[in-house]
């Protein structure tokens, strides 16, 4: 009994579905084959437009305005008789033209944050990539044993959560932290890691290098393993020394990978945020505040200066793009 009834229900449901489908096909506008294709890929573009394109465009738009609080009313509405859709006004804005950009020129903290970021970048990226390359070459050498274990150990830091590892660095490098304890054991005076401008920047550089060296090493190692062995053999037959093999075989062959690593690291360090935010909070005396941290503070700490923060963001993106393009142009030349 029970099974029969459920089968009936099932049939009724199926009929309903078929009926609904018929009605839908009858009502829906006909679409051509190519239109179907567009329809099927449209979700991506809708999401892309909503969550990427719109924010980017709106950021540029905002950079010409002064933010004056959240929007109170509605921008416009569409009335369909039975229901209506309203589009709320996002924010109260006042047009200031290029005001936000000219303000930047005279903003000492902006320049300070640019200086800090550049300082960290110029020291950190070469050290990290040099280190990563050295480690990759060492691990690529045929005589090294337990390669897998070393590789894993060196690459592991990248899996650490940024805030978690930054907090550990904060504890280690504290005035009374473990690092200073170790120094005192070998008779060195404790160092004010976080209270001196010089050392605070070095601490940040150390932290970032610790986390990302292994990651870059893995990429470089993959690049090294792609270099055909016969090139080295040919160089050896020509009597090349170890340095010459590195200079004239490894480096040119590794160039695209090296370029990739340099560009990625430069962008990564330029948009540094979490480490200084957690370890030094931008201090001491704003010596480690980075450009992204400054944008964050203008936008979300204290009174919201979303217009100015947007202008800073536009400039920031422009600088990062310029550096990346320059690097690719310079590095890509044969």
């Amino acid at each position, binding site marked *: 009994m029970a099974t029969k009834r459920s089968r009936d229900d099932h049939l009724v449901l199926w009929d309903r579905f078929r009926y609904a489908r018929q009605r839908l096909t*009858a*009502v829906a*506008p*006909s679409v051509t084959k190519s239109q179907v294709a567009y329809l099927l890929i449209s979700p991506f573009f809708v999401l892309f437009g909503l969550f990427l394109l719109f924010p980017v465009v709106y950021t540029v738009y905002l950079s010409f305005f002064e933010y*004056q*609080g*959240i*929007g*109170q*009313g*509605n*921008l*416009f*509405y*569409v*009335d*369909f*008789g*039975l229901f*209506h859709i*309203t589009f*709320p006004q*996002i*924010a*109260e804005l006042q047009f200031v033209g290029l005001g936000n950009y000219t303000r930047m020129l*005279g*903003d*000492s*903290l902006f320049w300070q944050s640019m200086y800090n970021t550049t300082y960290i970048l110029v020291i950190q990226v070469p050290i990290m990539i040099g280190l990563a390359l050295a480690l990759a070459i060492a691990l690529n050498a045929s005589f090294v044993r337990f390669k897998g274990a070393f590789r894993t150990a060196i690459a592991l830091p990248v899996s650490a959560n940024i805030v978690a590892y930054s907090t550990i660095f904060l504890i280690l490098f*504290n*005035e*009374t932290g473990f690092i200073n304890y170790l120094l005192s054991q070998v008779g060195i005076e404790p160092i004010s890691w976080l*209270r*001196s401008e010089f050392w605070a920047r070095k601490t940040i550089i150390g932290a970032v290098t610790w986390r990302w060296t292994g990651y870059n090493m893995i990429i470089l190692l993959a690049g090294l393993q792609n270099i055909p062995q016969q090139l080295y053999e040919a160089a050896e037959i020509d009597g090349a020394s170890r340095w010459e093999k590195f200079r004239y075989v490894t480096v040119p062959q590794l160039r695209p990978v090296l370029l990739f690593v340099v560009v990625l690291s430069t962008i990564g360090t330029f948009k540094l945020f979490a480490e200084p935010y957690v370890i030094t*909070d931008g*201090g*001491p*005396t*704003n010596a480690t505040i980075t450009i992204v941290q400054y944008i964050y503070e203008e936008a*979300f*700490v*204290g*009174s*919201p200066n*979303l217009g100015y923060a947007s202008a800073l963001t536009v400039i920031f993106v422009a600088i990062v793009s310029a550096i990346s393009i320059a690097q690719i142009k310079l590095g890509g030349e044969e």
Partner: protein
Amino acid sequence: MPRKNTMYGRRRVLIGGASAGTLALAGCIGTGDPEEDDDEGTGDDTDDDSNGEDVEMADQIDVWGWDVAARSLELTADAYMEEYDATVDVEEFGQDAMKEDLRSRLTAGSGAPDVAMLEMIDGPAEIDTGAVADLTDRIDDAGIEDDFVSGAWASLQEDGATYAIPWDIGPTAVYYRRDIYEDHGLDADAIETWDDFQEEGEKLPDDIAMFNIPVNDLDGVWRFQFRQLGNRPFTEDGEVNIHNDDSVMIAETIKQLYDSGIASDYDGWSTEWFNGYGEGEIASLPSAAWMEGTLRAELPDTAGNWGVYRIPAHEAGGPRASNWGGSSLMIPEQIEDGERERAWDYLTWSLATEEMQLLMYDEYGLFPALETTYDNDEVFDEELDFYDGQPARRLFADVAEEMPEYQFSIDTPYVSDAINNHLFRMLRDDEDPEEMVMEAAEEVAERTGRDLA
């Protein structure tokens, strides 16, 4: 097949025509709000719901706070739910987590709780978002303004409108370890000025600090003294005034105490800092009434060893009352009318009734901004075990009634930043106090586009 096609066509024409017709008839697209009877466009955030008797109160509201403050709101919520037929859900956060989350929901225009905690120092910045409901008319109708300490309102107001109700305040005092003072012959009663404070502190052996100077919170140290001497960071005309004679004197005092070697310099609230007080390596703690709750919770072993005296004056006979910290409760602008009615009802129940304020004070040490509570001798003259029998609450209440008014502004973060950095440099690099204070003022002027007073 043809039949089908014609049906397509007919239906499409019909639907298209119908929708076009409705759009045309309804006037379709417009600006502003389609509901004409709404008071949209007046630019008045108050809404006309302060005559909200005709709006029915919602059954449930969400309340946000952090740490001890959230726990104390749970107390009043329980009492409220027993009394009224409504649910009040209190959610507890960490301080930074809540500030960030709340800010994003306020500026996004949706998702905010019905009642939220608002620290007084953040008052002007949050009000500036335009997302906090104007409570002026409600406060006037309820007639509760005079029930609160007058100094507590300033940071919750903008252009004559009030946006939050004061909750707790932080009358200042120096907490001291009675046992340490006794062991080394220090006399708390002999301390009237910072010079006396230093003199007494020098009696301590080298491994015990008289007090801690939190080098990460020098602006807090500076601010309570700046207020103690009756100053405000900006003049009536909006000029920067953090470099006046009082400010220089405060910087000199801090430097003198630091250089005398009687102070430790741990970061405030750090592990070392708590350890220092827990293990008796630091003898005194200039702070505010709310510190009692923290000490009771974090260093329970020290209960009974503490005493309080008023913060020292800068010159003999000078003022010894100020305020450090404090918070309020506000209602976001975005919530529905029903929720707003309930939120207001719960908010006044928690903050404007003596019973609830005293409950929170007793349980969690949040010193009431509700001045009428101070008349309750039973509570305020109680001899407290934590203070070895000292009726400390009376001291705090006296300080609260004497403390000068102070006003935070949207530019407060710039002042904090500049003062903190420059006083830090003054201590670390042995810089001249007057020069540092001047530089700090110039920095604030530059970053806020203001003039120097």
